[in-house]
Structures are given as C-alpha cells and as structure tokens.
C-alpha cells in the first residue's frame, strides 16, 4: 500500500465496518480548581515536559496575571471565573451512556439529518462500544502513509517530547505568549492539541481532516495547534466536526499557529458546532480563539470557517503576509440563532511586496442573536502593490437579531489597492414567493436561499465537508422562520 488516498478510504468505509479504538492518555485525577504557578508546573510535569517548556508556560502565566480580560468585542456575557475552573482533567474515557436509546432524541435526529453513520453517532454521543482493536486499523494505516512521506502528525505533547527542536523554534512565533489575554492563558495551561509538520516539497496526500474524523482526540478545553508547512509543501487541515458536540467545558480558549515557509500552502478549515445554549440562551460554550498564520515568500494561507455553534464566538483567524508575493485568504460563514453572539472576522497584515488578500464573510443572524464582523486590513509602508478585496454580507432573519460590521482599514502605501464592501439585507419576499410558486415550501426555500448566499464560502471547504456544512446550515436555522 504505497499511497492511501481518500478514495481508498471511501471504498473501505463502504465495504467494511470498522470500529474505533478509544485513545486514552494517562489515567489521572482531576486537578483542584483554580490557577496558580503550582498548577502550571503540575500540568507540565504531568505531561512529562522538558524544562524549557515548563519555563515557557510559567512565562506565559506571569504575563497573563498582569493582563485584563478584553471587553472591546461586541458581545455580552457573564465573565468566566478563572479561579473556578479545573485546568487539567484526564480524558473522559468512561462512556456516558450504555446504549443509543438513552441519548437525547433531539441529538439523534440531528445526526440522522447530517447523515452520520450509526457507529459514528455512538462515538460522538459517547455511547459505549465494543472496542475491537483491529490489527490494521484505518488510523494506523494513515499514520503509516503519512510517515512514509516524512509528515509528522501527532499530538502536541508528543511533539514536545519527540521533536523538541521544531516545537521550540516555532511555538509562540506567531502567537506570542503575551499576545492577548486568552492566548496567554492558553500558553500557560494548554492541555493538548495537534502538531503537524510537512517536510520540504511534500504535498500531503490526504486531507488531514479525514484522519481527524477517525482518530479525533476529543476537543480539549485549551487546545494548542501548530502546523508547519516547510518550503514548497502543501497541506489541507480540517478541525472540528459538523456533528453537534455537547462539551461540558464552558470556556474554550484555543490557540492555532500556522507557519507557511517559502512557496508553501496551508489550507485550514474549521467547522464549529459546539453547544450554543438552549432556546432561552442558557448555557452554551464560550469560544475565545486566537488563530494566526504567517506567510513567507510566495506562501499562501487560506482560512475557511463555518461557525454555527457556541453561545459566544470570539475569533479572528489572521494572516501575516510577511514574504513577498504571499497570499492570505479568509472565507467565513457565521450563523447565529436564538441568543448566540458571534464577533468574528480576520486580520490581514500586509508586510511584503505584491501581497494579496481576500476576505469573504457571510453572516446570517436569526432569532435574538447578534452577529458581528470585525476585520483589519493593514498595509505597511513597504508593502508595495498590496491588494485586498473584502466583502461582508449579512442576512437578517426576523426582527430581533442584529448584524454589525466593524472593518478597520489602514493604508500606509500609495500603491495599495483596497476594496471593501458590505451589505445587509433580508431574504426577499419575492424570492420566497418565486420558490413557493414552484412548489418549494417556505422552509426549503429559505434553506435554498441561505445556501446560495453562502455558496462562495461553502465552495472553499473540502468536498465532503461542504455537503455536511450545507445541511448544518439548514439545521441551524430550523424554526427561525415565522
């Protein structure tokens, strides 16, 4: 088996029922709640980290202590109590339910709509399964294929031990410890995350998403992801999952760093569908994420995100276009319903010459939700011939929601060409009428129109996820039409 492609996988999935192996780290008790230097040291010790990593965490913790929680975002929420959280708990290996019958039927209905297989449903909702360790599990096969190419793809804790020189060189190089409040917190206490290194000139043969779906390590509260694409390499990475995930952790503060060296390309897609809270706005996940990538010469970073979950989303995947001719892209769909609040957007920092960036942001607000786009396009004095195109469209459904745009544009170079446009509108009655006339029900018609509205972004997702994301949009907006 020299090359294992997605097609092979699809074949295999058709013909063979496979089971997943639960991946359990170290059995351990949950740490006492609260955060202090000892806890940070203990986390580091628990993970068996080298001294430099412990110091790095402590440095971050010191910085965090002096920082204050940001309040500029256009969201309102009860601030989390940072001393009321346990910062380390062993992965929950105990099944939550004994059979699918015990699982919330609403959740199962959603799974069915998304077309998720029964086994996957079990895994996602935490139902106990007979764990059969296959002699050649799909995951291991994948790992082998990747290994042959020299691609490193493992958890960040593993990477810290196995590839310390790579981690040491790049961690914090894009998102420094003291970058912002949540990034500092994450740097101090991150529990786990992914590490990916693509060697020079290698084109990653599969969407790392596919792998992820099978060997998902469970979303941690403070994830740390580091993706390094060496010169001339290519990788497509997908995090998250279309399936609704009911996480008990209320606060999520992840950090993602992307490094695209000369001529490399990274495509990073996110589908986020965490628990948004109930229809009254109770509960739900706070998602405070720092994502940033740096592009060297001729490199390209492309962020694609579909945000439908979380009670509060606070997320700005950014690109630093440092090298000449580098390209940054940001495609986003943010859907908010009920009492959800999203403040999301991007930063494109043009430093190199002939750098290009594209921003397409589609916001859909329904119910009583608030949806904001906040973006920055910055052209530095040396960024000759920089080019930016931004488009933010908002769709409002119902009269209790809000759509906001806060674009910042700073140009310091006369050769810059920047275009920004934003529109806000609602679904036209004539459009719905047209569909109704042709026998399409109002709900279906709205799904159709919303899909058309977000097509530009959906097209950028890896194929199989695009299909699911479409369905996800429909589900997220279900019942929002009166």
């Amino acid at each position, binding site marked *: 088996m020299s090359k294992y492609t997605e097609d092979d996988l699809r074949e295999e999935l058709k013909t063979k029922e496979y089971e997943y192996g639960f991946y359990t780290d170290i059995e351990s008790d949950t740490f006492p709640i609260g955060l202090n230097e000892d806890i940070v040291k203990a986390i580091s010790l628990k993970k068996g980290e080298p001294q430099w990593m412990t110091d790095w965490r402590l440095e971050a913790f010191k910085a965090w202590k002096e920082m204050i929680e940001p309040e500029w975002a256009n969201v309102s929420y009860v601030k989390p109590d940072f001393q009321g959280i346990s910062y380390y708990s062993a992965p929950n290996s105990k099944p939550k339910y004994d059979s699918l019958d015990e699982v919330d039927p609403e959740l199962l209905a959603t799974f069915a709509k998304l077309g998720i297989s029964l086994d996957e449903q079990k895994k996602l909702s935490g139902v106990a399964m007979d764990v059969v360790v296959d002699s050649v599990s799909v995951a291991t096969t994948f790992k082998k294929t990747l290994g042959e190419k020299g691609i490193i793809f493992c958890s960040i804790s593993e990477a810290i031990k196995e590839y310390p020189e790579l981690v040491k060189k790049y961690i914090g190089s894009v998102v420094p410890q003291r970058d912002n409040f949540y990034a500092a917190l994450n740097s101090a206490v991150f529990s786990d995350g992914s590490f990916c290194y693509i060697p020079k000139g290698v084109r990653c043969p599969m969407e790392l998403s596919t792998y992820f779906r099978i060997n998902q390590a469970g979303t941690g509260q403070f994830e740390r992801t580091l993706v390094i694409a060496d010169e001339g390499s290519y990788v497509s990475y997908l995090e998250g999952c279309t399936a609704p995930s009911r996480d008990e952790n209320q606060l999520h503060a992840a950090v993602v760093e992307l490094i695209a060296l000369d001529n490399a390309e990274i495509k990073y897609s996110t589908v986020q569908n965490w628990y948004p809270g109930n229809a009254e706005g109770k509960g739900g996940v706070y998602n405070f994420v720092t994502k940033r990538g740096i592009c060297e010469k001729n490199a390209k970073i492309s962020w694609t995100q579909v945000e439908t979950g979380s009670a509060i989303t606070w997320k700005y995947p950014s690109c630093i276009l440092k090298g000449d001719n580098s390209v940054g892209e940001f495609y986003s769909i943010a859907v908010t319903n009920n009492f959800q609040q999203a403040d999301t957007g991007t930063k494109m920092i043009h430093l190199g010459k002939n750098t290009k960036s594209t921003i397409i942001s589609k916001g859909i607000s329904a119910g009583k939700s608030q949806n904001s786009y906040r973006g920055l396009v910055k052209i530095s004095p040396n960024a000759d011939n920089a080019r930016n195109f931004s488009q933010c469209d908002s769709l409002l459904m119902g009269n209790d929601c809000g*759509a906001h745009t806060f674009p910042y544009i700073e*140009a310091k170079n006369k050769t810059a060409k920047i275009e920004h446009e934003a529109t806000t509108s609602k679904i036209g009655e004539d459009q719905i009428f047209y569909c109704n006339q042709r026998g399409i029900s109002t709900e279906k018609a709205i799904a159709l129109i919303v899909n058309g509205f977000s097509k530009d972004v959906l097209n950028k997702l890896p194929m199989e996820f695009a299909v699911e994301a479409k369905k996800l949009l429909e589900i997220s907006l279900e019942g929002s039409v009166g």
Partner: protein
Amino acid sequence: MDLKEKLLSSFLVFENQLEDDAYMNDVRNDAITAFEEKGFPTKKEEAWKYTSLNSVLKEDYSIFPKQENAIEFNDIKKYFIHDIDSYKIVFIDGKYSSHLSQTTHDGMDICLMSAAMSKPKYRLHIENYFNKVATKDSLPSLNTAFSSEGAYIHIPKNKMVAKPIQILHFSTGNESAIMLQPRNLIVIDENSHVQIIERHQSLSNNAVLTNSVTEIFANKRAIVDYYKIQNDNLNASLIDNTFINQKRESVASVHTFAFGGKLVRNNLNFYQNGERIDSTLKGITIIGDKQHVDHNTLVHHIEPNCESHQDYKGIFGENSTGVFNGKIIVNKEAQKTNAFQANNNILVSDKATINTKPQLEIFADDVKCSHGCTIGQLDETAMFYMRTRGIPEKEAKALLMYAFSNNVLSSVKIPEIKQRITKIIANKLGVNMGFDL
C-alpha cells in the same frame, strides 16, 4: 500646568463673571464635571484610535483673549463667499464683530448666542434646545461649560430664508496661542428652508485651537443645507462637533470641505427622530504636508422609512493622514431604512496614511444598508489617454482627481460655493484650471 488644569481653573474665574441664572449654571457645572471626569480623549478610546490630540494640546493657549481687534473688511474679503448677498455673523478672536456682520431680527432671528443667552425672550428657546442634542462627551461638554458666544439662528414656520447665512470665525494672532470655543444653535421650524456656510480662519501663524459645537434642530419638513469650508493654515486646529436632530420629513445635508489646518476632527452626528427623513453627509478632503483630517460620522436611524447618504472622498499627499470613521446605527423599529455609505481614497504619497473604519450596526431586518470603501490610485490608462492627447502630467492628474471628487460637488446647491471649492481644489493640486469643461 497642562491644558486641562488650566481650563478647569479658568472655569472658576469665568463662572464668576457670568450673570447666569440657576438653569444655565447647572448646565455649565454638569458639563465641566463631565469634562473633568473624562479629560481630553486619548488614543485608547475607540473613537479616537487614529487621532491623537497630544501635538495640539501641548501649546499654552490663552482661553480668554484680552483685547479686541478690528480688522478691515478688505483684508478678509477673500474668506467670504462675497459674490452673493448673504447674512453674516463674524467673530474675531471669539468676539462678535458688529461692523463686519449683517444680522437680522426681522421675522426671524439671525443673531448672537450671547444675546439669546441673556435676553429673557429667548429663555424658553434656550431651555428647549440648548445642549439638548449635543452628547455629553468630553469635548462637547467642555464647550458647553464655556459657551458664551456663537451664532444663534431661529427660523420660524414656513419661511424661506432668501439669502445664505455665513458664519465666520477669525483669529488674529494677537495672542501667541488661542483656544476658541464657539457655540452655535440653529433651530429651523416647520417647512422652513435655510442655507448656512461656516468657516474658521486664522490670520496669522500663531497656534489656534477651535473646539466648536453646533446644534441644529430641523423640525417637520424643514430643509437645512450646511456647508463647512475648512481651509485654514497649518498652525490652526479644529475640532468640530455638529449635532443634527431631525424631525419627520425633514431634509438635512452637510458638506464638509477639508483642505487645511494642522489637525481637523469633524464629529458629525445625525439623529433621525421621525419618519421619512433624508440625511446627506458628504465631504472632500485634499491635504498634504503633515496635516491630519479625521471625519467621524454617525447616522442614527431611529424611526422607519428614512434614508441616509454618505459620500466622502479623500486625496492624501506628502505626510498627511486621513481618517474616516463612519457609523450607521439602525434601531429595531427603523424598518425600511435605506442607508448608504461610500468612502473612496487616493494616496498620492508614500508617506501618507489612510485609516478607515466604516461601521454598521443593524438591529432591523427589513433594511437596505451598504457601505463601500476603497483605497486606490489614479487610473493609469486614463492618465495615458490624456497624456497622448497632449495634456501635461500634472494637469492630467488634477483632472482625474477633480473628477474623482466631483460626485460630492454635484450636490452643492449654491453655485458660488461650487466655484470657490473648485478654485481651492485647483490651488491645492497646483494647477491653474477652471475645471468648467
């Protein structure tokens, strides 16, 4: 002693000299307290992120000019739109100059703020309108505390004011540095129509800081045209706070022509308190040197079926900085709102900077709101076309830039202003052309 302390201590002296009644006294005291709490805005405040007042505030301004100055009309004639008949309200170093002015009480009041504040017959009006739409931010509050002079205009019902009104503020440079705080109150009653031109001009190279507040009330079906000509010299700074409260079916437009000054900040706020209101905000900015011009606009759509149009063009040369911060808020009740905003900029120098932040906050669903913002260069093919036809580079550039800003000029209703602005633009671009092609 920094400027804030100086202002606070001067207020005590100033307050003692006034013969205010309890009402005005309270307004002033509240205002100075608000200013004392907030101080001058800093870059840490979101609305002042791109504009720092530090360079302006470090001067030692005198707050109450001592001697009065007379200037001859001929010396300052060029600052008037003099080829049309108009009412004039002229201030020299903050003091009213009666021999240069032409005011009236004939069926309407075009007169002075000081008169309106002291005479009992205006009392009700002052209580109803004064400081009612101005925000309680630090700079408007500072002005409120010290407000003593400015234009007071009240046009009663069904009146078409035949001549435009010119409000001019001159500073003579008798003091080495002077701070002026003019306060204008303009009330236009039902169905009336007025055109107003405002200009601030420094006659010397001494530092001037003007913190001006203008409150405009456009009542039912009133039409207000307001033109601000800002072409001051490089030591004069202007912070202009204009608040417009519009009632049902009124039409208000403000054109801001920003060509001069060291630092200019225009806080232009429209509040639409009624249905079927139309608001227009337009501006041309052409600056160079180390000039800094900041347009900060707000259009607050409060009720349904209203429109707003914003169009700001900017051309930035040398080391200049341009800022545009346009905010549109659409309340939940303001259905069927049409709000448009455009901000187009050209950078002609490597050292010039543009910071722009168009902002939409929308809470209603049946609305059409859009904003567009561009930063670009002159079209090379258009340049080439003109060059092949023998038009020199400088003139070709000027023509393109004029065409670029023409959209704003086209809605100016007084032809003489249009001509004057055209001349200033030609002057700014260093060409000798009429542009009347």
